[in-house]
């Protein structure tokens, strides 16, 4: 590790070693050819720059909002590989596939390289001066509330700067939008525990029952949870934790559960109440109001409604009773249904009944600077923006880190509504669907070339400010960091305030150094503190949180009666957030396209998961192209007969079906988000993702499903390959 952070900027100025002269092949008839190759030496070099030795610089991963600390291996001026930063409280040196692919976001051949101004259907490269001037000009004709900023997850100083800019524009609106955000969970948590994201202690729990939370795959902070999961499985006191997953479509977490309970879509809440009922029956103390709430949820009824065997409900209750503390987590089920908030309340009630609050559900660390804390993203934001656009209330629209033209349901007619805004500016890495609709596209630096700070979406026990810093010289001369653009725009409005900052780097440095006392650097020299911060790539700040305040009462839980069967659209569509694709923003990173989906092992395409029974009923076999039709459109994709899904549901992964974005993303699969019904959670107004009813039909074509799984189809054919053993057959306490 380089301690001397002071040289970071110099390092970037000096020339790279050997330019881009990478020998692409090592196996040809290469002979020793004297004097044919060039060795370009440095003009100036610092001590740590040694040719052929990789140097590691810390930064923060920007592939999702989890905010893992990373270190980039830099050699000869190029970043080669990302590895985890062991100091980070989020990932402790580990990384996921998505994070590994960060280098491909950086080196992506389809990045936007120049500011592009729309002229007809094409983009014309213009200078930054012209681009920024144009924005200033267009903003002049709009009132504050006619300007909207649509962003994805944002935190840290970029978010603070954006806040300042919105203010400077006279109250422009910020819409923070993310399809996969656990927005309903956060709202429900706020109610039940008093905080949006309590600190979940998986490692302390002896049993976990998760209601569709894919915490190992794609939920909130998977790398962090995976590590806790490993400790939970090892059982620090010798007892191996037990995981029960309740969901309608098997997620990666479900695939790792000791018991995977397939429930009828939307009945997760019923099951939670059923478990409480069974706990009561097993002798656990229940308060009167809870008792009366769950009295109708006898195992037989619950089993009938959810489809889970009654015996399993009893076993689950027995397990939870025996193993304390336990932990119930509400996940995608909560985001999925109009009664999602109710499901969350039922799960919270379960936690409360089991006495988990305060034991495995703790208060998170406080983030002392709220302006740096992650923006509360959600799907309702897009609905609000769409309404504003439809009503013609938005004249200038900025988008950054969000791709609504791709991810909005066709029912919202977002693309058409967007046209109503007079001037659309997209901050973009790629020419994605939204950038193509914009009037002005501003090319962004990649996450490995840019400065920034991040506050993780999920804090854990210590709050942490991740510092993002350039790991190498800019790949394209004419791209800029989002922070730099915002600063330049701010200077247009409030030149005096910001004139002291030459660029975003200067701003960031000042902002961090000024608060060094709060960031644990009290008394340190400015330069030393800043140097150390960059060297570590993160600052830990904020004390552990206090106690949790909220409480959920039986009155908060009111589950609706089971929905009547819909003859026209008999199936529930579950859009699946895959660990690799998430909401589709990484679709142009080929490693992620080629890495098989862990459960189906499909690559380079989307698929429709159908339960074998349902498939047999409909005469569908693997590879049939099926048409999935909802009230708002239809998509075609290959069928994959998959045992891990409830027969009344079909599932299609998100993130595929891009019409633009780049060579690896374009025309790969179908976009499931486009056919969603715009149904909202009744309490929070967040779009419910699993409320779309569909019918499926064969489209008459059959293809070979391109997947990793071979002809044996996941069978071991009697061979001892992946072996499983039940807990009573092993002794884990003796293990190393």
């Amino acid at each position, binding site marked *: 590790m380089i301690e001397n952070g002071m040289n970071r900027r110099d390092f970037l100025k000096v020339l790279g070693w050997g330019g881009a002269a990478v*020998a692409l092949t090592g196996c040809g008839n290469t002979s020793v050819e004297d*004097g044919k190759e*060039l*060795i370009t030496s440095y*003009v*100036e070099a610092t001590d740590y720059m040694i040719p*052929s030795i990789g140097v590691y610089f810390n930064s923060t991963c920007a592939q999702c909002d989890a905010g893992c600390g990373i270190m980039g291996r830099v050699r000869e001026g190029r970043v080669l590989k990302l590895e985890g930063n062991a100091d980070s409280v989020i990932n402790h040196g580990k990384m996921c596939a998505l994070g590994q692919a960060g280098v491909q976001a950086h080196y992506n051949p389809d990045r936007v390289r120049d500011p592009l101004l729309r002229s007809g259907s094409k983009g014309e490269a213009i200078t930054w001066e012209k681009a920024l001037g144009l924005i200033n000009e267009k903003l002049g004709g709009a009132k504050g509330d006619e300007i909207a900023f649509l962003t994805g997850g944002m935190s840290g100083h970029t978010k603070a700067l954006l806040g300042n800019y919105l203010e400077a524009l006279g109250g422009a609106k910020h819409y923070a939008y993310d399809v996969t955000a656990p927005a309903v969970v956060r709202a429900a948590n706020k109610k039940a525990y008093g905080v949006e994201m309590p600190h979940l202690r998986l490692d302390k729990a002896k049993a976990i029952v998760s209601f569709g939370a894919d915490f190992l795959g794609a939920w909130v902070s998977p790398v962090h949870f995976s590590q806790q999961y490993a400790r939970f499985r090892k059982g620090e006191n010798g007892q191996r934790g037990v995981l029960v997953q309740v969901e309608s479509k098997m997620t990666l977490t479900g695939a790792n559960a000791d018991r995977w309970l397939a429930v009828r879509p939307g009945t997760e809440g019923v099951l939670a109440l059923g478990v409480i009922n069974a706990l009561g029956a097993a002798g656990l103390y229940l308060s009167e109001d809870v008792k009366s709430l769950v009295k109708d949820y006898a195992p037989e009824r619950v089993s009938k409604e959810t489809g889970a065997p009654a015996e399993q409900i009893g076993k689950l209750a027995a397990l939870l009773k025996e193993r304390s503390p336990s932990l119930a987590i509400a996940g995608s089920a909560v985001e999925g249904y109009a009664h999602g908030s109710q499901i969350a309340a039922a799960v919270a009630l379960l936690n409360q009944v089991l006495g988990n609050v305060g034991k495995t559900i703790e208060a998170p660390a406080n983030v002392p600077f709220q302006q740096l804390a992650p923006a509360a993203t959600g799907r309702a934001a897009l609905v609000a923006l769409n309404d504003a656009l439809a009503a013609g209330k938005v004249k200038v629209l900025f988008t950054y880190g969000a791709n609504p033209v791709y991810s909005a349901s066709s029912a919202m007619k977002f693309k058409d509504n967007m046209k109503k805004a007079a001037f659309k500016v997209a901050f973009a890495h790629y020419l994605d669907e939204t950038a193509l609709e914009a009037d002005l596209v501003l090319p962004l630096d990649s996450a490995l070339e840019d400065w920034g700070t991040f506050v993780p979406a999920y804090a854990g026990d210590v709050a942490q400010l991740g510092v993002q810093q350039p790991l190498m010289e800019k790949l394209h001369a004419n791209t800029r960091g989002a922070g730099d653009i915002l600063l330049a725009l701010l200077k247009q409005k409030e030149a005096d305030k910001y004139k002291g900052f030459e660029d975003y780097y200067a701003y960031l440095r000042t902002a961090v150094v000024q608060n060094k006392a709060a960031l644990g650097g009290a008394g340190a020299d400015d330069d030393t503190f800043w140097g150390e911060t960059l060297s570590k790539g993160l600052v830990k700040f904020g004390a552990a949180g206090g106690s949790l305040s909220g409480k959920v009462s039986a009155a908060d839980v009111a589950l609706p009666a089971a929905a009547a069967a819909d003859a026209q659209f008999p199936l529930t569509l579950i859009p699946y957030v895959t660990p690799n694709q998430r909401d589709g923003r990484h679709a142009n990173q080929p490693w992620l396209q080629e890495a098989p989906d862990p459960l189906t092992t499909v690559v380079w395409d989307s698929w429709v998961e159908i339960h074998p029974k349902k498939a047999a009923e409909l005469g569908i076999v693997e590879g049939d192209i099926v048409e999935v039709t909802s009230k708002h459109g239809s998509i075609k994709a290959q069928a994959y007969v998959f045992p891990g899904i409830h027969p009344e549901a079909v599932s299609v992964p998100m993130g595929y079906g891009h019409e633009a974005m780049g060579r690896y993303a374009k025309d790969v699969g179908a976009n499931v988000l486009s056919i969603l019904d715009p149904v909202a959670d009744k309490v929070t107004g967040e779009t419910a993702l699993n409320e779309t009813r569909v019918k499926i039909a064969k489209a008459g074509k059959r293809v070979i499903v391109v997947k990793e799984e071979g002809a044996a189809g996941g069978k071991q054919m009697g061979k001892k390959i992946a072996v499983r053993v039940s807990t009573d057959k092993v002794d884990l306490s003796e293990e190393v």
Partner: protein
Amino acid sequence: MHRFLRLSVLLIGLFVATGSHAAETAPALTTADDLGPQVEQPIEFPHDRHAGDASKGGMQINCMYCHTYARRSASSGIPPLQKCIGCHQNIESVKDKPRIKKLFEYWEAKKPVPWKKVHDLPDYVRFSHERHVQRFVFQQGRPVQEACGYCHGDVKNMTVARRSKPLSMGWCADCHQKDHPVDGAAAAKTAKGPNDCWQCHK
């Protein structure tokens, strides 16, 4: 027919003899002075002036004074321009020589000198300068110029460096199969160079 038979016997005998001789002496075939081509460098750097013996007007500078990476990295590297300038800005006597002028031109333009590779290996060969320098110079205590000279030849008497050893696989392997003392002590244990393919090809 006899003539035919005699001829066949002779031919077969000849083939066998040449074959086995060639096999025995194969490495030797390429160890002769296999001088590489004269490489034209942007600046005709006089190694003899810098590293040559004092008796011949050289300054006897240690190889690793400039090629400082050799002991720390697989790649010996070319020193940064900064290094040349570090000395030469104080050496007034040669400042207006054409080569030095050119050097300063590069420096002022902050452009690296486009040196050409003299000792090039195929891309699938990974030679570690570090290990060889550590082993022979630091652990075994051989003189630097001798150790470097095994592969680079008598650079101190060259102006622009020129490849003088074959740098071929048989040539490398030949040395790896010899017993070399592990440290400087006279009766110390010896060891051969590694014999794995993966040592150099990976």
